[in-house]
Each structure stands twice: as C-alpha cells, then as structure tokens.
C-alpha cells in the first residue's frame, strides 16, 4: 500500500469518481476546468496507466484493457459496443444508464468498470430470450411506454428490478419507484401502465 504508484492510482480513481458525483463547487479545487479561477495553474495529476478489467455481461465474460477511470457505462458503450445502456447525464441523475449488477439496479455511470468485476452485469441487450421479449419489454411496446426511446432501456431495467423490490401495489407506488428514471418525452403514464400490467400478470401467473 505504500507504493507511491499505487497510492497515486487510488487517489486518481477516487478523485475522478468524486468529481463526477460531487456538486461542481466541491470539485472546484481539483480538476473540472470551468470552475477553476481564470489563470490558475492546472493540477499536476498524472493519469494512471491502463489496467486489465474482466467484465461478465449478459453471461459472457470479456477481458478489456481500460483506463481505470472508465465507468461501467463507458466500458459497455465504447469498448464493448453494447450501446443499449444510455448516457443521459453521466452524474447519476437521470437513470438512462440503469443496468443490473447481481440482479439489482445500479447506475452504470456511477459505477467504475473495475468495481463491476466478478459480478454478473445484465444490460437491456441481455433481457430478451432469443426472439422472445421480456414481458416488460413487450408491455412497454403494448402500452406505448416510450417515445424517442433514449431513456427506455433504463426505464425497462428499472422496471424489471422493481418487480423484485418492496414496491407497494398502487400506481403511486410505481410512480415513486420509477422516479429515478427521467423521460423528457413524457411517457410516464404509459410506463406506469406497462409496469402494472406485468405486475398483475406476474401475480396471476
């Protein structure tokens, strides 16, 4: 742990992670350019070297060499070309990047790729069984729970995870449980209808 390279590496990872979650004002001292006072000297942080990362996504294990600052979302989209998970804000505020880690919903933009090793990742691409859509995917089509489609993968991943969460039965409960996923097109009422359709069918089945 005393190896300076390792310390620097950890420092960089933490700094990068913090910079993406903290309010702009808090991150000011370190890096983010628009917040540094004009003329202030840039930080002398040395970016870390690439590292090997093994990710198991939708049942397939892939070995990648990544910049350690790479988020799970960017690893999926840019390195694995699994672009179904969307980048809407990169700050954990919109839900478009929602994937399942160990079956629970997480925000892939707030998860560094290195943190997702040794845990199964499921993305929207892994939800259907062959040509058969997951009931939630089908319900989103049937209820028109989507418009531009950009938030849709995140909505569906949240909705599927919700089925195993202690979410109350009412429409208002679903609204609350789905409020981490923003839809600017305003498909919300249809999303609630889709989720309730699947919950009702699941309860019956």
């Amino acid at each position, binding site marked *: 742990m005393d190896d300076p390279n390792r310390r620097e590496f950890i420092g960089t990872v933490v700094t990068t992670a913090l910079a993406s979650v903290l309010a702009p004002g808090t991150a000011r001292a370190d*890096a*983010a*350019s*628009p*917040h*540094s*006072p*004009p*003329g*202030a*000297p*840039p*930080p002398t*942080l040395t*970016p870390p070297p690439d590292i090997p990362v093994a990710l198991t996504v939708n049942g397939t294990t892939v070995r990648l060499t990544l910049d350690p*600052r*790479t988020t799970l979302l*960017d690893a999926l*989209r*840019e390195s694995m070309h*699994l*672009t*179904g998970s*969307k*980048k*809407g*804000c*990169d*700050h954990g*505020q*919109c839900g*478009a990047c929602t994937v399942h880690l160990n079956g629970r919903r997480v925000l892939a933009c707030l998860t560094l790729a290195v943190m997702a090793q040794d845990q199964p990742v499921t*993305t*929207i*691409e892994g939800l259907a069984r062959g040509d058969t*859509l997951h009931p939630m995917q089908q319900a*989103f*089509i049937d209820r*028109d729970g*989507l*418009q*531009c*489609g*950009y*938030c*849709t993968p995140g909505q*569906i991943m949240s909705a599927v995870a919700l089925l195993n969460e202690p979410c109350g039965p009412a429409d208002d409960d679903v*609204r609350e449980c*789905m*409020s*981490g*996923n*923003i*839809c*600017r*097109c*305003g*498909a*919300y*009422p249809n999303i609630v209808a889709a989720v309730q359709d699947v919950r009702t069918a699941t309860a019956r089945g």
Partner: protein
Amino acid sequence: MIGDPVSRVDGRLKVTGAARYSAEWPIDNLAYGVIVQSTVAKGMITAFDTEHARSSPGVVAVYTADNAPALPDKGRAAMKPPAGRELSLLQDRAVRYNGEPIGLVVAEKFEQATHAASLVRAQYESHTPLIDMQSALPSAYPYKPNINGSFPPATQRGDLAAGLAAADARIDATFTAPIETHNSMEPHNTIAQWDGDQLTLYDSTQFVYGVKRFIAKIFGIPEANVRVISHFTGGAFGSKGAPWSHVVLAAMAARALNRPVKVVLTRKQMFGLVGARPHTVQHLKLGARKDGTLTAMEHRSISSTSSFEEWVEPVTLATRLMYACSNQQTAHELVRLDVGTPTFNRGPGESSGIFALESAMDELAVKLAMDPIELRLRNYAERDPESGLEWSSKSLRQCYSLGAERFGWSRRRAEPRSVRDGDAFVGIGMSSATYPARRAPASALARLMPDGMIVVQAATHELGTGTYTIMTQIAADALGVPIERVRFELGDTRLPENPISAGSLTAQSTGTAVHLAAVALHDKIAAMRGDVTTIVSARDLVTRGGGQPIEARADAKPGDEQKAFSMHSFGAIFAEVRVDASLGTVKLSRMLGAYGVGRILNPKTARSQMIGGMIYGLGMTLTEDTLLDARTGRYLNADLAEYLVPVNADIPEIDVMFMDERDPQTNPLGTKGIGEIGCVGVTAAIANAVYNATGVRVRDLPITLDKILGHTSFAD
C-alpha cells in the same frame, strides 16, 4: 391502417437497445473530442495555456483560436438566422457568454480527452456582463424583421385606445417566464468522418438536410460532399433543429487529424451552447364590456436574446387570432444579454404567449364574474380576425364543451379557496390552446422490392414522434397492404429531401409526400396489370421488370390553399391542482386536453405525444427555471438534479380527447400536426387552477411555493 392504434414499428428496436443513435455508430480508429468552455461571460482571451493538456497521455490535438483551422468568412459563411446560427468555432478570441466553447481537446480515449480538457487554461480581459433580465429591461428595443420570415413583428387593428376607453372592465398585467432549457435525454452529439473530401456526419438532429447545407457552407465545400445520417434522435424539442458549434468542431478536428472524431456534449454543456426558450416579460391589456365582449387587446412581449444574434420568441402570434376583437395591438421587443442564443422550444411562441393571454382572460372572467369558458365563447373567432380568412377547420367550441363535460367543469366553484380536502386547497382551471398547421415541400420514394416488400424513403426524422410508424401506416394504407409489407427509411441525406422535423410539420409535409408516392406506386403497378396486395404478384411483377425494383417518387408542395384559408390547430386544457394549505406546494392532480388537430393517423402514438406535450408544459409551469449567476453569467443549476424536469411521481392521470376532425384544406390526409400544441395552454390552465384553489394569482413562472406562501391572499 390510417387511424388504427398501431404499436410503434420501431418499438422492438427501442426496447431491446438495438435502435442506433448517432453517437453509437461503431467507427474504426475513432478519437474523442471534448469541448473546453470559457469561464467568464464577456471579454477577450489574452492567452491560452495548452501545454499541460497537450502533454497529457493520449491527447492527439488541442485546438483553440491560436491554432484552429481557419474557416471561410471566419465560420460565418452559413449564418442565416433563425436556422443558420452564429456559432463558436475557435475563429477569434472573443468571449460572449460563460461556458462558450473556446477549445476542443481530442484524445484516443474519452477519459483522456475529458481529463486533458480540464488542463486547458485561458487568460481573459474580462468585462462586466449583462445577465439579469429585470435590470436589462430598460435596454429593450423593438424587433424589426419579420418573425420566422413571414409574420410582421408588430400589428395593429382598430383603435386600441378607443377600445380600452369603451371597456367596462380592464386587465393590465405583466407576466414573466424564465429561460427554459430543453434537456432532451440524449445529449447533442456528432461523429464526423472524412473520406478524402467526402464528409459523413452521424448527428443527433431534427434536420439532416439542414445540417448538410449548413456544414457545406461553413467549410466551403460542395453540398454533394456531405452526407448526414440520423436514424434515431433521442429527443430534441427544438434544440436539435439547427447545428450548433460541436457539429462543426467535430468535423473540423476530423479533417485536420484525418481520422473520425466523436463529440458528445455533457449534460452541463446542454445549458447555453444549444439554445433554450428565452426569458419573456409580457404586458397584457384587455378591455371588455359587461357582457364579456372584448373591446381591446394589447400584447407586448419582451424576450431575451444573446449579444451576438437577434432571436425572437414569437410570443404574440396566437393573440392575433385567438379572439374576435376589433381593437388590438401586438409587438415584440428584445433585450440583449450575455448568454447563449435562444432557440425554438416546444410550442415556441404559443407556449409563452398563451400563458399570459389565457391567464389574463381568467382574470377578466373573475372581474366580470363570468364563467371562464363562457367568456371565451363570447369572443369566439368564427374566422381568423387578423387575416379575415376562413379557418380550414376549427373545433374549439367542441373542445370547450366536450372537454368541460368530461372533466366535470360544471362542478367548479368560482370562489377561490372554497374547496378544501384535508391539507389541500383544490382548484380547477382551464385554458385555450392553438398552434399553426404548417406545411413545407417534401419528397418521398416508394419501391416495390424483389422480395415483395415495399420500401418507402424520405429524409425525415424519428424524434419520438412516431415517424417510422405513421409513415408506414400512410404508405400501407395507400397501397392496400398490411404494414408488415412496408419498411420506412429516414434520416439520411441520400434519401429524398424533407423539411425540418419541427413546428408540427412532419405528418403534414412528409406524410403527404409518402401518401402521394405510395399512391403513385400503386397506380404504376395497376397500369402493369399487377396486384401489389399479393406478394406472389408483386414478386412476379419485379421479375418481369428484369429484377429491378419498381419505383415511384412524389414531390409534394403546399399550394394556393395556404393563402385561401387560415390553418390552425386548437384545444382546451383543463387542470386540477391541490395546493398544500401550510406549505404552498402545488400538485397537479388531474389534467385533460381536448384537441381539434385534424385527422389522427394513429390514436395510440398521438395520445402519447399529447400527454408528453402536457407534461413538458407542466415542467414549464411548476419547476423549470434556468438559473444564472447575475455577476458571472454562470449556470447555477446545469444538471438534472437541480434543473427540475417532471419525474414520474409528478404525473397524475392525464386524459386526452381528439375531436372528430379531418381538415379538408391542409393536405390530402386531412392532418394538422400535433407535436407542438400539447405543450400550449398547460401553463395557464394550471396557473388558473392555482388561483381557483388559493386566490393567489401567480404571473411569474415557475409557480413555486414561495410565490404562493408569501402572498397576502394565502394567509390561512
């Protein structure tokens, strides 16, 4: 077919993650560009320090005004507002707003480019910016050019002073609204790839042909050398109607580096760099007789623009035609602020203008002790009061009556604060809505393929509006085949030219072209004694023709009917709110939109689009406010945690009614376009409901609890 509630034909692609948005094209040897932004709002850059950025690992290039490739006419060759914007293309050292692009860092990896961009430093000679709308109001000046190229900036009919003098009741009120930032879920993005002198842009846009023309002019290259591809756009709402700086910067870097470059804006960069609905300050005067007849209307709008471009929010256009009133004046003024240039935002003009007009009408109804719907019916415009033309169609009367009936308007108690349910005051309100039914030239190609499929092509766009679906329905309907036989292709400048997907143009313009191309193909096949409805016959026809697809093209243009009729959509919005008696928080509890918007091509997707518009309007009414530090011009809430767009928990039951309308004049399909009007009138309906609930009239958007709690009428 047409008129059937067909599920989206692109639904499967969207729910499986297979729909490809522009930043998602797999491109070899891709480099990542990240924009560097100014940290002051006004001034000149005296020096750049790019040394640390350049030596940062993975960095391929750092562009600033010191070394960026020179563009013809300093990057202003394509300037032709409102679509051809003045951009920030690193051609000079002037800074005109805080966060303006002043550099581009390109690196092998996204993380490397992001880090290196944070290392670029600039020295400024900085000046005090003008940011605050209220303190800038004395500098307002009349806007002179025609609005959107065709509407006079100011109008006058009759004698306003005489009309006001003749009135028994008068309203004189000022309404304000802040900057509203679109925030489509997909950030703006572009991949630029040069192959010799041929440029391909994968761009998130509402207008592939517009981007093609603009970029060709910017670089001084033939239009034929530019191809723009956009198969799916992840929301736009007006902000992707014209190319912004990042498109040019990506293409500039890709050319200089001779490798493809991708630039994706961060969420924060979507505040200021890509337009927004501007500030508006509206002065409304109404005069009416005791019986509710309007004798005078004056509507003056002041909206904000940037220091470097005149962009006007067409606020008063709706007021000119909404009511039969013979004495009226309207005018638009501008205030120049040191901010990014505004642009079209959902229901541009009408969304802002109707807020003021329909709030003022509610105030007038209160003053006259008249039912708000009755007041509107007293002044119902049987023909366009500004042009004198007949309406091509208008069902507003039915919207009022059927909407009111379904919403339970008759149970409304006119006296504010008269309905209480537990902790909440409950109130209901309504507003009229309108939006022009516009049409532009459009083209389409329909082809019978060797496998019996019919491929229909038009370079239009899928923004979430259901374009793939309705165009498939239109073509299948004209050909008499099931929709599974039709594949619609869009979003590529190799396909026939189509207009911008904005202003509710697409169903009218592209829809007509698709209809006519399909009809032409049908007739062509019939002339060959074929039957397109059976696959066997279709395949046989193609084989007999030597295996080449049989094709028909249509170029559709609006005609003289546009001058003979006034073409507009109309609607009536009803809202119920619950205002917490202790906290002043406003919760929308019910909303209904009743619309006369021409023929509905697909009631399923149309309903979704109207609901989406109403939710967009809800954000404008209750939560959205782009906050700028008046000292620095810096955005204070440039993210989705602080800039509050509606979330699922904000949304109650929303009901939509379509009047049975098929416009005989607009186009052969009888549509009027539905994309914009959903957002119109929501603000006033909710504001009027808040008044009905509490007795507090909020004339300043958004309607936040401080404006209610702090009001003397609210003391519980």
